[in-house]
Structure formats: structure tokens, C-alpha cells
């Protein structure tokens, strides 16, 4: 047996039939938005390519990304991809613990220098020299820097690693930062969401392992195939939006009829994610389908954009806390009052000037 097994060998060793393996390949091709011709290509890659090791680190986070990941809809995706990963390092999911686990991390980093993919869940706090997050007796910041040094590519799992999420929300006492502030010399693929959708996570990993390259990314480093459109663009309630049919308040008739949640603060129009197409829990539902607006959890700084239930964001600058319309009406009102006063003085001036002229004449 060669030093590194192929994906196919790992799968067969796990008791997966060839038939199931091919089904997995077609499903993956479909999930990645590729045509049916790509299924054999994926199968071929998985049969011949040596397995790429993945290290999965955890910083400041709530493990919701891991929780989501292990609930991936297709059991094969979960079993295969997850077992391939846990072969190396994931301190939450792996069997070993303590010094033994840390030793595996060191070993993988040494053995597969420049070949392994680093997946990061959570983010590093910078304040107090990183003392707000300690892994194995050392700041997570150190572990992250060390592990990223020889990584081929880095995956930022979830909104924590991608944007900062709740621990980076105002006032951010631990000074938690997204990982791209710390890792500046590696390609980072962001998979935001709180948590990201399981199928999106496995899809991204499978793509990278299969094709040996990053999927196409958008300007913010998110894979286009899953983050190319807004929730709003593919929402099944979109016809109600276009018709002008809105839920005005919770539990009104429109809410029961399943109208658009725009007016009760749905962030679907400003959120890039695949929820309205892939959905959650084996395609069962997603927030809007359950009757609640999208809170925009895959967007940068979504905790700091005011209420989840308002359409217009509150603006916090200069100690004010008003939305654009309130500020605008106040400014326009003020200017209007100033104009009225100025006009009144002008009128008086004009009248007195006329009087003077008439007197002169």
C-alpha cells in the first residue's frame, strides 16, 4: 500500500460499495452545479488522486459549524469526507485527546508540508496577546499561525472565521478578528454562515479535494457556486415581494398566507447564501420557509446592523441611533425650517427695499 491512500481506497475500506461511490460522485457534481459529464471526472479523480490531509482547528467559536457539518444530508458525504478529515486532526471530533491529539497535529504538519488544507472554525482574539483563547496551553493565535505557515490553502468555516461574528461584534472586548487579518500569505476560502449549510461545507471540501484547486471565488473570497446569489433572488416567497404583498406584523393574515417578510426585517435581499436553494436539514426547510425573516447570518457584521426585525438599519455613528429615514426627515425638516425663516427675512427685506425705492421716486 502506498504511503497515502486515494479517496476511493478510503471509501472502500469503510465498506462503501462502488455503486454508492458513483452515486456520491453524481450527487457531488450536482451539488457543485456541474453538469452530468463531471461525475465520471470526479470519480476518476477520487480513484487516482492521493488523499489530501485536512487539519481542522477551533478558535473562538460555538462549534455550530461542526454541528452543521456532521448533519450533511447525504450520509456518504458525511461519512466519507468526515472520516477523511478526522484521520488527521479535529480536536472536537477526533477520538484522541490531550498530548496525543496535539502530537498528531505536529506530525501532519511536518509530514504533509505544503500539501494539507487548513480548515479554521472560529477566530483568534488578539487582545492580551491572544490569552482569551487557549488551546493546548498556548494561545490559539500561535497555533493558527503555525498551522497556516505550511498549508496549501485555508478554509474559513462560518462567520467567525470569515467575518468575526458575535465575538467581534461591538464592543469586541477580546479583539477577535477574522482569520484573514492574521493569515495574509495564503489563499483563504470563506464559507460564511452561522453556521454554514452542511451541504455547502461538504461541497466546498469535496471540490477542493477532488480538483486540487480552490473553487471560483467572488470578490470577498466566497465560493461563487454557493454565495453567488442572495437569499432574496431564489426565495420561494419572491412572487409576493414583486406583487407588493407583505407580512405587516407577526401573526397577521399575511403571515399565515406566507407573504414576503421584507417589512418585518427579512435580510434576504442583502444576504448571500444558498439557504433558499439548498435549504437545511436534508432540504427540509429554511428560516423564511418557517415564517421568520432571514437574519443575514452569513454577512459581514450582521450582529451590528440593528434589529433583525427592521427593514432599515439603525445608524450608530456620533452617538445617534436612528435609521436613514429618521435622520433624513430630521435633516430635511431642519433645512426646510431654515429655508422658511430665510425666506421670511428675505421677503421683509424685499418689501422694505421696495418701500425705500418708492419713497425715493
Amino acid at each position, binding site marked *: 500500500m502506498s504511503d497515502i491512500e486515494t479517496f476511493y481506497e478510503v471509501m472502500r475500506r469503510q465498506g462503501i460499495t462502488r455503486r454508492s461511490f458513483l452515486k456520491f460522485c453524481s450527487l457531488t457534481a450536482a451539488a457543485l452545479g456541474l453538469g452530468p459529464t463531471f461525475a465520471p471526472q470526479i470519480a476518476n479523480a477520487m480513484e487516482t488522486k492521493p488523499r489530501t490531509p485536512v487539519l481542522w482547528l477551533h478558535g473562538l467559536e460555538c462549534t455550530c459549524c461542526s454541528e452543521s457539518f456532521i448533519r450533511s444530508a447525504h450520509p456518504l458525504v458525511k461519512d466519507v469526507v468526515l472520516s477523511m478529515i478526522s484521520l488527521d486532526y479535529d480536536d472536537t471530533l477526533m477520538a484522541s485527546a490531550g498530548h496525543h491529539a496535539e502530537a498528531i497535529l505536529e506530525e501532519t504538519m511536518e509530514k504533509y508540508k505544503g500539501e494539507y488544507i487548513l480548515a479554521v472554525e472560529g477566530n483568534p482574539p488578539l487582545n492580551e496577546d491572544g490569552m482569551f483563547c487557549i488551546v493546548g496551553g498556548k494561545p490559539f493565535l500561535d497555533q493558527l499561525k503555525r498551522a497556516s505557515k505550511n498549508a496549501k490553502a485555508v478554509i474559513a468555516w462560518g462567520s467567525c472565521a470569515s467575518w468575526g461574528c458575535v465575538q467581534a461584534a461591538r464592543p469586541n472586548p477580546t479583539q477577535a478578528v477574522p482569520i484573514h487579518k492574521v493569515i495574509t500569505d495564503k489563499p483563504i476560502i470563506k464559507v460564511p454562515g452561522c453556521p454554514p449549510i452542511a451541504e455547502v461545507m461538504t461541497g466546498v471540501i469535496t471540490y477542493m479535494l477532488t480538483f486540487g484547486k480552490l473553487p471560483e471565488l467572488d470578490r470577498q473570497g466566497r465560493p461563487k457556486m454557493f454565495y453567488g446569489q442572495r437569499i432574496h433572488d431564489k426565495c420561494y416567497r419572491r412572487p409576493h415581494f414583486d406583487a407588493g404583498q407583505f407580512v405587516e406584523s407577526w401573526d397577521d393574515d*399575511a403571515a399565515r398566507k406566507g407573504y414576503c417578510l421584507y*417589512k418585518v426585517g427579512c435580510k434576504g*435581499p442583502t444576504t448571500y447564501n444558498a439557504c433558499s436553494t439548498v435549504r437545511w436539514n436534508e432540504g427540509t426547510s429554511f428560516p423564511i420557509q418557517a415564517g421568520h425573516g432571514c437574519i443575514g447570518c452569513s454577512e459581514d457584521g450582521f450582529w451590528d446592523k440593528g434589529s433583525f426585525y427592521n427593514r432599515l438599519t439603525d445608524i450608530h455613528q456620533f452617538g445617534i441611533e436612528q435609521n436613514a*429615514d429618521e435622520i433624513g426627515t430630521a*435633516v430635511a425638516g431642519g433645512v*426646510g425650517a431654515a429655508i422658511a425663516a430665510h425666506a421670511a427675512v428675505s421677503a421683509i427685506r424685499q418689501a422694505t427695499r421696495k418701500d425705500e425705492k418708492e419713497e425715493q421716486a
Partner: protein
Amino acid sequence: MTEQVSQTLAQPGEQVRRQTAVYVYEAPLRLWHWVTVLCVITLCISGYFIGSPLPTMPGEASDHFLMGYIRFAHFAAGYVLAIAFVGRIYWAIVGNHHARELFLVPLHKKRWWQEAYHELRWYLFLEKVPKKYIGHNPLGQLAMFGIFVVGIIFMIVTGFALYGEGTGAGSWANNWFGWVIPMMGQSQDVHTWHHLGMWYIITFVMIHVYVAIREDIMSRQSLISTMVGGWRMFKDDKPD
């Protein structure tokens, strides 16, 4: 003939007032002005109702397309405004020198500052007699550039960035203006800034309309009729 002398018929006992006229605003520029007026009105109304939609439409979704029409009006007016603005920039290059006033504020000229100071005093009722201007007065010019030109460019850029979100990756709007969204944070931030921009433009319009009417009455030259017919009329023959 660029100089024209006209006499208003005087009633007995009234002064005879002479009006000298200069051709200032050429036809394309006037057309641009009024097209922009219509666009701004359409954009503000439709934009407001995109941010705060009208009450729910009863009946089946298939019977209505209200938000669709409102958004269409907004996008169409946005396109017209932007294209007209590009045309306006072109006219600043090929048109007469008054057409350039909007974009080139002569901040380096001492005389400009003196006149701006004088104009400020005039608006604060500290000067009795205003100066004569063929084009914009310095304060007007500054407001035109600082509020209108900058404001409208901001609205065009953020507007097409948001429009590009709907048309999606690969569309021209997304290719050209998509960079605005990460620059401002995220989509929600661009929405908020674009919304604030509307109030900025509304504030400009209020001041612009008020000052135009006021100066039409109180200054020594015509303003409103100039933007209709292109001729600047002077109400007296006294120098400056």
C-alpha cells in the same frame, strides 16, 4: 447675436427698467437639467417605496406586480439619470464655458473667494446690493459641485452596485460597480448609504429650488427663465 437689449413697457410713473441678456445655457444642457429633475423626483418616490413599501395588496400574487413596477421605475429612471449625467460630462467638454462651471470650481482664484465671501454676506442679509453673475455665483457653484455633482456620482455608483446585486455576477453593473459592496462593508451598508444619499439629494433640491426662486426675485439677473430659454437677463445696466 449674444447681447440683446429689451425694454419693458413702463406704466406711467414707473421707472423704465432695461434688461440686458446673455445666452448662457445651451439646449442640451437645459434638456439635461429638466430630464434630471424628472429622474430625481421619480427616483426619490420609487426609492422611498422600495425602502418602505406600500400597504399589502389583497388577492393573489399573480394579479399584482406593484413592487416590480416600482423597482422598474427606479431602475429605469436611474439609467436615464446616469446616461444623462454622462452626456452632461460630455457637454462640459464640448459645450460653452458655462457648461464647465459645474465640474471646475476655481478654488485657486483669489477673486472667486472674494465673491464667495460677498455672496455669503448677501445671503446673511449683510449686503444690500448683490453682484451680477452671468453663470453661477461662487456659493452656487460650490453647492452645485460639492452637493449635487458629488452626491449624484455617489448615488449612481452605489445605485448601480445595488442594481448589480440583482442582475448578478457577470452583469455589467456587477463587473463595474460590484467592488463598492465589500468596500462599504456589506450589501446592507450600501443600502443604508444609498438611502441616506436620497435625503442628501432631497436637501440639495430644497435649497436649490428655494435659492433659485429667491434669487430670481431678489438678485439682479434672471434664474428660472434662464434654465428654460437659456438667456440670462439682467435687470439693470449698472456695472457689476
